[in-house]
């Protein structure tokens, strides 16, 4: 059953001049971890705020637990939201912060205390309960914000880029923690990020948004391997998918599938002569930049060679590369949408 659903949601700002959300249909199932991914300004926060009830949509409906809540205020929705800034109440202690939603809901006192202790233990913030938010580190603040969301036992967690304030190292561990935590609690979670690594790592399904529209919804593998259009293909993956124009179509292939010809075992391969101009070493991989020919019009592409491929390659020479034909993806050159595959000989 869908716990959260939006139907033909539209949100315009400034009397219709800004189309922040432009007709979005989505649903998140019970216990699902749904990630909203998209570039800055594509409407992720607006969508989340509409789910939370902080924005009233221009048209369309929001359903939570099967009930239409479009016009209901946030407090009537049984949702918990963690803001990007964590929005801890600065004048309250950690304890008072966590217990606040329970008091607001009129939970009896013994029960409140029991729940705060439970959440504090789960997130390992027991020793911090007496502190004020300003006395906490970024990671600790995040855990307090999560604890405050958690004690309410909401139907849905809404998280808006909760990791973006953390440094790279803390981010990785916090991401891991979030995933374990959600697996343990099993609450439906909608998570907003513009970081594809976070999205791929956390999501059961990823929703790729651009300019207020959904471009693709699917599990990480599918979004990565079978992008619905050139936007998704180039937005996800780093370096992004190579696109080469050929006879009114775009031929796409991921950098890790463009390998020296002797490393492509498949008999059904398409050869790509590559005029190498630059090589980068990045965490063990070799990123080889060059101009590809024969597969289509001459285009600058990238190949990502894993450490296990030790074929000698030097800048300035043209080397024979190839792509397994099953790895090729085709897009319409006009619309950018996925197109029927064609056989390329080579």
């Amino acid at each position, binding site marked *: 059953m869908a716990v959260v659903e939006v139907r033909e949601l539209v949100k315009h700002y400034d009397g219709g001049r800004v189309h922040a959300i432009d007709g979005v249909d989505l649903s998140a199932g019970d216990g699902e971890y749904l990630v909203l991914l998209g570039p800055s300004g594509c409407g992720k926060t607006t969508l989340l705020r509409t789910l939370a*009830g902080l924005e009233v949509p221009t048209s369309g409906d929001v359903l939570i637990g099967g009930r239409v809540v479009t016009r209901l205020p*946030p407090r009537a929705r049984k949702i*918990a939201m963690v803001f990007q*800034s964590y929005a801890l109440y*600065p*004048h309250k202690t950690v304890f008072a912060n966590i217990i*606040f939603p329970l008091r607001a809901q009129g939970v009896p006192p013994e029960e409140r205390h029991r729940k705060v202790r439970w959440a504090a233990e789960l997130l390992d913030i027991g020793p911090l309960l007496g502190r*004020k938010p300003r006395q906490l580190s970024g990671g600790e603040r995040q855990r307090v914000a999560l604890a405050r969301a958690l004690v309410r036992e909401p139907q849905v967690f809404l998280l808006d880029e909760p990791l973006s304030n953390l440094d790279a190292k803390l981010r990785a561990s916090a991401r891991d923690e979030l995933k374990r935590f959600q697996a343990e609690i099993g609450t439906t979670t909608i998570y907003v990020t513009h970081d594809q690594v976070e999205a791929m790592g956390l999501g059961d399904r990823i929703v790729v948004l651009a300019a207020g529209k959904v471009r693709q919804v699917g599990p990480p593998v599918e979004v990565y391997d079978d992008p619905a259009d050139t936007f998704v293909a180039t937005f996800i993956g780093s370096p992004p998918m190579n696109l080469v124009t050929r006879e009114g179509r775009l031929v796409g292939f991921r950098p890790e599938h463009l390998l020296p010809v002797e490393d492509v075992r498949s008999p059904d391969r398409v050869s790509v002569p590559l005029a190498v101009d630059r090589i980068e070493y990045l965490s063990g991989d070799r990123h080889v930049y060059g101009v590809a020919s024969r597969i289509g019009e001459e285009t600058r592409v990238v190949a990502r060679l894993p450490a296990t491929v030790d074929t000698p390659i030097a800048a300035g020479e043209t080397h024979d590369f190839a792509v397994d034909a099953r790895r090729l993806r085709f897009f319409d050159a006009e619309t950018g949408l996925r197109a029927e595959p064609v056989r390329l000989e080579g």
Partner: protein
Amino acid sequence: MATRLADRAGLLAWLFLLPSVLYIVALVAVPFALAIAFALSDVSAGDPSYDYVGGRNFERVFDDPVFWRSLGNTFVFTGISMVLIVVLGKVLANILVADFRGKWLVRFLVLLPWTTPVALSSISWLWLLDSIYSPIDWVLRFFGFLGPGENLYWLGQPGLAMTSVIAVHVWRLTPLAAVIMMAGLVAIPRDIEEQAMVDGAGYWRRMFEIKIPLVLPVAAVAALFGAVFTFTDMAVVRVLTRGGPNDATQVLASWAFYRGIEGGDVGQGAAIALFLFPLLLAAAIAILRVVRRIEVW
């Protein structure tokens, strides 16, 4: 390499502080020293020669029942005014930040008392509170609260006179308080308020548990400033009642003025005014402490 003036932080600090130091010495320290000197002398308008008389002025002031009456009035005036100013200021601040049709007109009206020159507004108030032609009395009469030909004599009866003075003072200061508290309200991050909404808090809980505590430091500073201002202010008293009837609205500042300047007994006037000093010092220390608390958040 030669150090330039701009590199010498210590010297620069002194240079920049100099104007304010001069200002404080000329307009605070000198009058303060003069006040002490006068309070210990028998200088008067009729006999400006300086003769040291020790604490005699203070003894005479303390023996004067009007002094004690003024002191009591000052506390009543300041206390009640401040409570009303803070409460009304907060309410008006909420109106100022609210988003509704016609908010510009309301904002204009809220700020009007603050922008009206005292000379102008006091004439209106004198008319509003006039003993015979008071429009307030007309209205009361119209609704039957007053009999025909009856008048309340707003400024002629002790209780009503104090009420009038407080009302006008509150009317005068509330816009400023509202603007200061509006600044405090606007400074609350939107996230925090929205978080409280998502957490399920209703309007009153958000008001009393989130917004008021967060504007409290700003409000406290505003209230203390207002208290100091009110404590030493005599403008409304002077315009409306001149301390009357029968000293019912006499406050320390006006009493010092009538004694020292109008009555010509400079020594006593200075002694009365000096009595304010320890109270104001305490208020100033309180302000500084509150400001420090804000920084700690």
